[in-house]
């Protein structure tokens, strides 16, 4: 099997009867790229993955994998391997049989099957589980076996459908690292569906944020995090969430953001397209981008309502006038409710969104 692994969706449309799920989606995934499809449940990311796998019929468009048009190919002929959220291990087979099932179906020579199973088991450290049934494995072990079953297929493209969602927090971060390591080692293309923005940010070369069955933004984790194209992406990515301050943009030459309790000149803000004078906007800034500046003359004053120590740092819930504003501070900061802080909102960290449609300005 060739290990070519660039994936290309060209105008893909999926419909369930009269209900259109997708309309003409385009997506290019390069060889060896790790692409994460990120979105809330029901945004269509799993359906899209199933369409790539050939498990969901598409109504229009083409799917190319490894330079071949596989639109009409059966899943097994697409050069893909897939890992599922519920692991989907065959319950009546032991681990060895689970791993080798696909190869046995394909009538691979026995020696080759044994070799591939051994390599996969070694890579995932499941060598001593080979004779167990799935029911005798823990959740983390089951998911390892499921990943192993994908590995033995020796495919060019790996598809992951929320593989870590059924695991507890500790295992999730463990396996997350392992998947990333696997990606580096194999150099295979990976398409990974999740609703967990941490997974997306940590794993991805590029993230495609989805909502309502369309791509909102496709970009590197950094682009997505620092320059979200709209308010949805800004809120969905990042925890604790971005602060939003509603207001207006005034002054054509030297624009100023103005709200009831905040006046902020933004002369250097790189507008994607200049807003009309007095246009309603929302200003967004992430909690960790706010700077404490006790001595600055142009600082804003906020009052502390509550603080949440998070171990590595501390989240202060404050009010700017009557607007809530959360600020991420060093862990050793001592705060009591009612304290007043002087802060700066650095211009290069600001995000301005059109208040009417949420698009980035």
């Amino acid at each position, binding site marked *: 099997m060739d290990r070519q692994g660039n994936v290309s969706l060209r105008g893909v449309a999926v419909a369930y009867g009269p209900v259109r799920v997708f309309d003409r989606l385009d997506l290019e995934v390069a060889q060896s790229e790790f692409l994460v499809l990120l979105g809330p449940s029901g945004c269509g990311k799993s359906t899209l993955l*199933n369409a790539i*796998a050939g*498990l969901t019929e598409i109504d229009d468009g083409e799917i190319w994998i490894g330079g071949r048009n596989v639109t009409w190919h*059966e*899943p*097994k002929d697409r050069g*893909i*391997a*897939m890992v*599922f*959220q*519920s*692991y*989907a*291990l*065959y*319950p*009546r087979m032991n681990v060895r049989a689970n791993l080798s*099932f*696909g190869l046995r*179906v*394909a009538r691979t020579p026995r020696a080759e099957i044994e070799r591939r199973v051994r390599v996969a088991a070694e890579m995932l450290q499941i060598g001593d589980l080979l004779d167990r049934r799935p029911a005798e494995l823990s959740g983390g072990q089951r998911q390892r076996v499921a990943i192993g*079953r994908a590995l033995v*297929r020796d495919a060019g493209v790996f598809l992951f*459908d929320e593989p870590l969602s059924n695991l507890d927090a500790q295992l999730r971060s463990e396996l997350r690292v392992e998947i990333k390591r696997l990606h580096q080692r194999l150099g295979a293309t990976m398409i990974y569906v999740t609703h967990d923005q941490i997974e997306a940010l940590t794993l991805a070369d590029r993230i495609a944020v989805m909502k309502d069955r369309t791509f909102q933004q496709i970009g590197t984790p950094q682009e997505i995090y620092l320059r979200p194209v709209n308010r949805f992406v800004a809120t969905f990515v990042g925890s604790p969430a971005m602060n939003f301050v509603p207001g207006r943009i005034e002054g054509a030459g030297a624009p100023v953001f103005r709200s009831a309790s905040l006046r902020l000149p933004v002369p250097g803000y790189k507008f994607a397209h200049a807003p009309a004078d007095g246009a309603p906007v929302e200003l967004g800034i992430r909690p960790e981008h706010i700077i404490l500046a006790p001595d600055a003359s142009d600082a804003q004053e906020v009052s502390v309502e509550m603080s949440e120590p998070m171990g590595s740092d501390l989240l202060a819930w404050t009010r700017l006038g009557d607007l809530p504003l959360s600020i991420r501070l060093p862990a050793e900061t001592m705060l009591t409710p009612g304290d007043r802080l002087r802060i700066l909102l650095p211009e290069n960290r600001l995000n301005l969104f059109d208040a009417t449609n949420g698009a980035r300005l």
Partner: protein
Amino acid sequence: MSAAIREPRGRRPWKPTPARLGLYAFLLISALFFLMPLYVMVVTSLKGMPEIRQAHLLNLPAAPSFAAWSKAWFAACTGLSCNGIRVGFINSLRIMVPSVIVSILVGAITGYALSFWRPRGAVLLFGVLIAVAFIPYQVFIYPLVRIFSYLGINNSVPGIVVIHTIFGLPTMTLIFRNHFAALPEELFKAARVDGAGFWRIFGAIMLPMALPIIVVAVILQVTGIWNDFIFGLVFAGRENLPMTVQLNNIVNSTQGEREYNVEMAATLLTATVPLVVYFISGRWFVRGIAAGAVKG
């Protein structure tokens, strides 16, 4: 007495209440109601005719003897031939074994196809299948006789096997479809990515997971097909009449004195198979039904 002075501690002592006693009385009466006919049949079959003529229905046999059982098995007359009910027993086995296997297999495949492959119109097909199960089957008999004689399989074992398969299809499809519908669909998807086709997924993954429900199906079909009368009478042909039909012939074709003991023995012999199946598999039966509730 001692309970009155004891401080409440540990398990509460059991005290019969009127409601509780009433409940036991009801259970006892219900059990007797169902056991009484069986008791009468067993004791009657062990009596000789002179003792039966005294009409002490509930008395235990004075000198228990299996003579009636042996006569029922080897020499009871059905119409003209007097070879006993064993002929019917063999016939019933010849009908039941293939019928059970084929009907379960066909039902399992249909249920599997309907729940995973979802062919066009699957919902409609399933609806029709279930709806048809509610039509009294006597309606189908005459048309089926005509069809079968046209096809040349009327009055033959294959013919009756086909009949049992057809009429078992709604129930078998229903229980297998429901069992498969409860399995995670990702299992099916994983098998497809692994390259398995329709039969491979069925044989290697789905059927092994359906073991508890297969036991339930076997019990339902063995009992149903063994107890069948009308299909056997109409479709099996004179050479292959099942045990139930032969029993009826024994009971209804009497010359001279009615041999109650032989008739009782023949009836008990006919009922043996479903009873044995139930006693052996009762535990499995419950387990199979419960297995549908939790994941396999």
